[in-house]
Protein backbone atom coordinates (compact mmCIF):
# COMPACT_ATOMS: atom_id res chain seq x y z
CA UNK A 1 0.00 0.00 0.00
CA UNK A 2 1.31 3.44 -0.92
CA UNK A 3 1.81 6.05 1.74
CA UNK A 4 1.50 8.81 -0.81
CA UNK A 5 -1.43 11.11 -0.18
CA UNK A 6 -3.11 11.50 -3.59
CA UNK A 7 -4.11 15.06 -2.75
CA UNK A 8 -0.45 16.01 -2.52
CA UNK A 9 0.21 14.59 -5.95
CA UNK A 10 -2.78 16.04 -7.82
CA UNK A 11 -1.29 19.51 -8.24
CA UNK A 12 2.47 19.66 -8.64
CA UNK A 13 5.31 21.74 -10.02
CA UNK A 14 3.82 24.93 -8.64
CA UNK A 15 5.88 28.04 -9.30
CA UNK A 16 5.38 31.76 -9.03
CA UNK A 17 6.11 34.16 -11.90
CA UNK A 18 6.39 37.49 -10.05
CA UNK A 19 6.70 39.63 -13.18
CA UNK A 20 3.35 38.32 -14.39
CA UNK A 21 1.80 38.12 -10.94
CA UNK A 22 1.14 34.55 -11.97
CA UNK A 23 1.04 31.15 -10.35
CA UNK A 24 1.74 28.24 -12.67
CA UNK A 25 0.83 24.70 -11.66
CA UNK A 26 0.38 21.33 -13.29
CA UNK A 27 -2.54 19.07 -12.52
CA UNK A 28 -2.05 15.33 -12.84
CA UNK A 29 -4.49 12.46 -13.12
CA UNK A 30 -8.13 11.71 -13.81
CA UNK A 31 -10.40 13.96 -11.77
CA UNK A 32 -13.84 12.91 -10.66
CA UNK A 33 -16.04 13.13 -7.58
CA UNK A 34 -13.50 11.11 -5.62
CA UNK A 35 -10.60 13.53 -5.84
CA UNK A 36 -12.15 16.82 -6.98
CA UNK A 37 -12.43 17.95 -3.32
CA UNK A 38 -8.63 17.61 -3.12
CA UNK A 39 -8.25 19.75 -6.23
CA UNK A 40 -10.62 22.32 -4.74
CA UNK A 41 -8.65 22.54 -1.52
CA UNK A 42 -5.34 22.92 -3.30
CA UNK A 43 -6.51 25.56 -5.77
CA UNK A 44 -8.26 27.65 -3.15
CA UNK A 45 -5.16 27.47 -1.00
CA UNK A 46 -2.98 28.62 -3.90
CA UNK A 47 -5.29 31.55 -4.55
CA UNK A 48 -5.41 32.56 -0.90
CA UNK A 49 -1.66 32.28 -0.45
CA UNK A 50 -0.45 34.05 -3.60
CA UNK A 51 -3.42 36.19 -4.65
CA UNK A 52 -2.27 35.93 -8.28
CA UNK A 53 -3.64 37.95 -11.17
CA UNK A 54 -3.38 34.87 -13.31
CA UNK A 55 -3.52 31.22 -12.39
CA UNK A 56 -2.10 29.03 -15.12
CA UNK A 57 -3.13 25.39 -14.91
CA UNK A 58 -1.28 22.99 -17.15
CA UNK A 59 -3.71 20.13 -17.84
CA UNK A 60 -1.48 18.09 -20.13
CA UNK A 61 -1.54 15.21 -17.64
CA UNK A 62 -5.30 15.29 -17.14
CA UNK A 63 -6.80 12.83 -19.60
CA UNK A 64 -10.21 12.99 -18.00
CA UNK A 65 -12.37 15.13 -15.77
CA UNK A 66 -16.05 15.21 -14.89
CA UNK A 67 -18.54 17.89 -13.90
CA UNK A 68 -17.34 17.91 -10.29
CA UNK A 69 -13.93 19.03 -11.54
CA UNK A 70 -15.61 21.64 -13.73
CA UNK A 71 -17.43 22.93 -10.63
CA UNK A 72 -14.09 23.26 -8.84
CA UNK A 73 -12.57 25.24 -11.71
CA UNK A 74 -15.60 27.52 -11.80
CA UNK A 75 -15.39 28.12 -8.06
CA UNK A 76 -11.71 29.00 -8.39
CA UNK A 77 -12.55 31.29 -11.29
CA UNK A 78 -15.17 33.13 -9.28
CA UNK A 79 -12.70 33.51 -6.45
CA UNK A 80 -9.90 34.94 -8.58
CA UNK A 81 -12.27 37.22 -10.46
CA UNK A 82 -13.05 39.04 -7.23
CA UNK A 83 -9.51 40.38 -7.26
CA UNK A 84 -9.44 41.00 -10.98
CA UNK A 85 -7.61 37.79 -11.85
CA UNK A 86 -8.03 35.20 -14.56
CA UNK A 87 -7.51 31.47 -14.97
CA UNK A 88 -5.61 30.12 -17.95
CA UNK A 89 -6.00 26.47 -18.92
CA UNK A 90 -3.25 25.03 -21.09
CA UNK A 91 -2.46 21.83 -22.97
CA UNK A 92 -6.04 20.54 -22.95
CA UNK A 93 -6.54 16.90 -23.84
CA UNK A 94 -9.48 16.08 -26.14
CA UNK A 95 -11.87 14.74 -23.49
CA UNK A 96 -11.27 17.70 -21.21
CA UNK A 97 -11.62 20.15 -24.10
CA UNK A 98 -14.89 18.52 -25.10
CA UNK A 99 -16.37 18.81 -21.63
CA UNK A 100 -15.36 22.46 -21.36
CA UNK A 101 -17.12 23.11 -24.65
CA UNK A 102 -20.30 21.38 -23.50
CA UNK A 103 -20.20 23.39 -20.28
CA UNK A 104 -19.63 26.49 -22.41
CA UNK A 105 -16.61 27.30 -20.32
CA UNK A 106 -14.12 27.40 -23.18
CA UNK A 107 -14.93 31.09 -23.60
CA UNK A 108 -14.98 31.92 -19.87
CA UNK A 109 -11.60 30.50 -19.00
CA UNK A 110 -8.68 31.60 -21.10
CA UNK A 111 -7.59 28.53 -23.05
CA UNK A 112 -3.94 28.68 -24.06
CA UNK A 113 -1.76 26.36 -26.11
CA UNK A 114 0.85 25.96 -23.39
CA UNK A 115 2.29 27.69 -20.33
CA UNK A 116 4.41 30.10 -22.38
CA UNK A 117 1.37 31.08 -24.41
CA UNK A 118 -0.63 31.65 -21.22
CA UNK A 119 2.06 33.86 -19.73
CA UNK A 120 2.46 35.81 -22.97
CA UNK A 121 -1.22 36.60 -23.36
CA UNK A 122 -2.35 40.08 -22.33
Amino acid at each position, binding site marked *: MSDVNPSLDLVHGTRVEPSKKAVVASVRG*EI*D*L*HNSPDLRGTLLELLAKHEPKRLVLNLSQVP*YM*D*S*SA*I*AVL*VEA*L*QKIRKTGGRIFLTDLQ*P*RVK*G*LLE*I*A*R*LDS*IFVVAKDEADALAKQ
Partner: protein
Amino acid sequence: MNSDPAEIADVRRAVENLAQSFGLDEKAVAEVGLCVNEALANVMRHAYGGATDRPIVVSGYCQDASLVVTIRDWGNGVNPATLPPKPFNPLEPGGLGLICLRRMMSQVSYVPQPQDGGGGMLLVMKKENPKLRRGSDFGARP
Protein backbone atom coordinates in the same frame (compact mmCIF):
# COMPACT_ATOMS: atom_id res chain seq x y z
CA MET B 1 -20.69 -1.34 -6.22
CA ASN B 2 -21.04 0.87 -3.18
CA SER B 3 -22.08 4.51 -3.41
CA ASP B 4 -18.46 5.47 -2.82
CA PRO B 5 -16.92 8.01 -5.21
CA ALA B 6 -13.67 6.04 -5.00
CA GLU B 7 -15.37 3.31 -7.06
CA ILE B 8 -16.56 5.52 -9.92
CA ALA B 9 -13.39 5.37 -12.01
CA ASP B 10 -13.17 1.58 -12.08
CA VAL B 11 -16.82 1.19 -13.09
CA ARG B 12 -16.48 3.90 -15.73
CA ARG B 13 -13.48 2.15 -17.25
CA ALA B 14 -15.27 -1.20 -17.25
CA VAL B 15 -18.21 0.30 -19.14
CA GLU B 16 -15.82 2.05 -21.53
CA ASN B 17 -14.19 -1.31 -22.24
CA LEU B 18 -17.60 -2.80 -22.95
CA ALA B 19 -18.46 0.11 -25.24
CA GLN B 20 -15.19 -0.34 -27.09
CA SER B 21 -15.78 -4.07 -27.55
CA PHE B 22 -19.23 -3.20 -28.88
CA GLY B 23 -17.53 -1.31 -31.69
CA LEU B 24 -18.26 2.25 -30.67
CA ASP B 25 -15.68 4.75 -31.83
CA GLU B 26 -13.34 6.57 -29.48
CA LYS B 27 -15.55 9.65 -29.11
CA ALA B 28 -18.65 7.57 -28.38
CA VAL B 29 -16.77 5.43 -25.87
CA ALA B 30 -15.67 8.58 -24.05
CA GLU B 31 -19.22 9.91 -24.07
CA VAL B 32 -20.62 6.70 -22.59
CA GLY B 33 -17.93 6.75 -19.91
CA LEU B 34 -18.63 10.34 -18.95
CA CYS B 35 -22.38 9.69 -18.79
CA VAL B 36 -21.89 6.68 -16.50
CA ASN B 37 -19.62 8.81 -14.31
CA GLU B 38 -22.16 11.63 -14.14
CA ALA B 39 -25.09 9.31 -13.49
CA LEU B 40 -23.23 7.56 -10.67
CA ALA B 41 -22.19 10.88 -9.15
CA ASN B 42 -25.81 12.05 -9.22
CA VAL B 43 -26.94 8.89 -7.43
CA MET B 44 -24.25 9.30 -4.79
CA ARG B 45 -24.82 13.00 -4.20
CA HIS B 46 -28.58 13.27 -4.59
CA ALA B 47 -30.31 9.88 -4.32
CA TYR B 48 -28.10 8.75 -1.43
CA GLY B 49 -27.26 12.20 -0.03
CA GLY B 50 -23.54 11.49 0.14
CA ALA B 51 -23.74 8.16 1.97
CA THR B 52 -20.89 5.98 0.77
CA ASP B 53 -22.12 2.54 1.83
CA ARG B 54 -25.35 2.17 -0.16
CA PRO B 55 -25.76 -0.27 -3.06
CA ILE B 56 -25.68 0.59 -6.75
CA VAL B 57 -26.00 -2.02 -9.47
CA VAL B 58 -24.60 -1.18 -12.89
CA SER B 59 -25.16 -3.44 -15.86
CA GLY B 60 -24.33 -3.18 -19.51
CA TYR B 61 -25.34 -5.21 -22.52
CA CYS B 62 -25.84 -4.96 -26.23
CA GLN B 63 -29.35 -4.88 -27.64
CA ASP B 64 -29.85 -4.66 -31.40
CA ALA B 65 -27.76 -1.71 -32.54
CA SER B 66 -27.41 -0.15 -29.11
CA LEU B 67 -25.27 -0.45 -26.04
CA VAL B 68 -27.57 -0.38 -23.02
CA VAL B 69 -26.30 0.67 -19.59
CA THR B 70 -28.57 0.50 -16.56
CA ILE B 71 -27.96 1.98 -13.12
CA ARG B 72 -30.16 0.83 -10.27
CA ASP B 73 -30.25 2.57 -6.89
CA TRP B 74 -32.36 2.30 -3.76
CA GLY B 75 -32.21 5.98 -2.93
CA ASN B 76 -34.80 8.71 -2.51
CA GLY B 77 -36.60 7.86 -5.74
CA VAL B 78 -36.58 11.43 -7.06
CA ASN B 79 -36.81 11.35 -10.83
CA PRO B 80 -34.32 13.87 -12.24
CA ALA B 81 -36.29 14.00 -15.47
CA THR B 82 -39.24 15.56 -13.64
CA LEU B 83 -37.23 18.34 -12.02
CA PRO B 84 -37.99 21.76 -13.52
CA PRO B 85 -35.32 22.77 -16.01
CA LYS B 86 -33.28 25.79 -15.03
CA PRO B 87 -31.63 28.16 -17.47
CA PHE B 88 -28.13 26.99 -18.14
CA ASN B 89 -25.50 29.27 -16.67
CA PRO B 90 -21.87 28.26 -17.26
CA LEU B 91 -20.92 29.86 -13.95
CA GLU B 92 -23.37 27.63 -12.10
CA PRO B 93 -22.38 24.21 -13.42
CA GLY B 94 -24.87 22.21 -11.36
CA GLY B 95 -26.95 20.09 -13.70
CA LEU B 96 -24.14 19.62 -16.19
CA GLY B 97 -24.29 15.87 -15.68
CA LEU B 98 -27.89 15.69 -16.85
CA ILE B 99 -27.06 17.85 -19.85
CA CYS B 100 -24.32 15.39 -20.78
CA LEU B 101 -26.74 12.47 -20.53
CA ARG B 102 -29.31 14.17 -22.75
CA ARG B 103 -26.79 15.25 -25.37
CA MET B 104 -24.50 12.26 -25.49
CA MET B 105 -26.78 9.27 -25.13
CA SER B 106 -29.27 8.17 -27.78
CA GLN B 107 -31.96 7.52 -25.20
CA VAL B 108 -32.29 8.11 -21.45
CA SER B 109 -35.16 7.04 -19.23
CA TYR B 110 -35.70 6.99 -15.49
CA VAL B 111 -37.96 4.23 -14.21
CA PRO B 112 -39.16 4.66 -10.60
CA GLN B 113 -39.00 1.34 -8.79
CA PRO B 114 -41.88 -0.07 -6.71
CA GLN B 115 -41.74 0.44 -2.98
CA ASP B 116 -42.24 -3.25 -2.32
CA GLY B 117 -38.96 -3.80 -4.16
CA GLY B 118 -37.18 -1.26 -2.02
CA GLY B 119 -38.03 1.81 -4.11
CA GLY B 120 -35.34 3.88 -5.73
CA MET B 121 -34.72 4.39 -9.41
CA LEU B 122 -33.62 2.53 -12.50
CA LEU B 123 -31.80 4.62 -15.08
CA VAL B 124 -31.68 3.14 -18.56
CA MET B 125 -29.27 4.72 -21.05
CA LYS B 126 -28.81 3.64 -24.65
CA LYS B 127 -26.05 4.53 -27.05
CA GLU B 128 -26.64 3.56 -30.65
CA ASN B 129 -23.79 2.23 -32.71
CA PRO B 130 -24.27 3.81 -36.16
CA LYS B 131 -22.17 1.06 -37.74
CA LEU B 132 -24.80 -1.49 -36.75
CA ARG B 133 -27.79 0.37 -38.15
CA ARG B 134 -29.78 -1.51 -40.74
CA GLY B 135 -28.30 -0.92 -44.15
CA SER B 136 -24.84 -0.12 -42.89
CA ASP B 137 -21.79 -2.14 -43.82
CA PHE B 138 -21.99 -3.99 -40.52
CA GLY B 139 -25.73 -4.45 -40.22
CA ALA B 140 -26.80 -5.14 -43.79
CA ARG B 141 -27.80 -8.64 -44.75
CA PRO B 142 -27.26 -9.84 -48.30
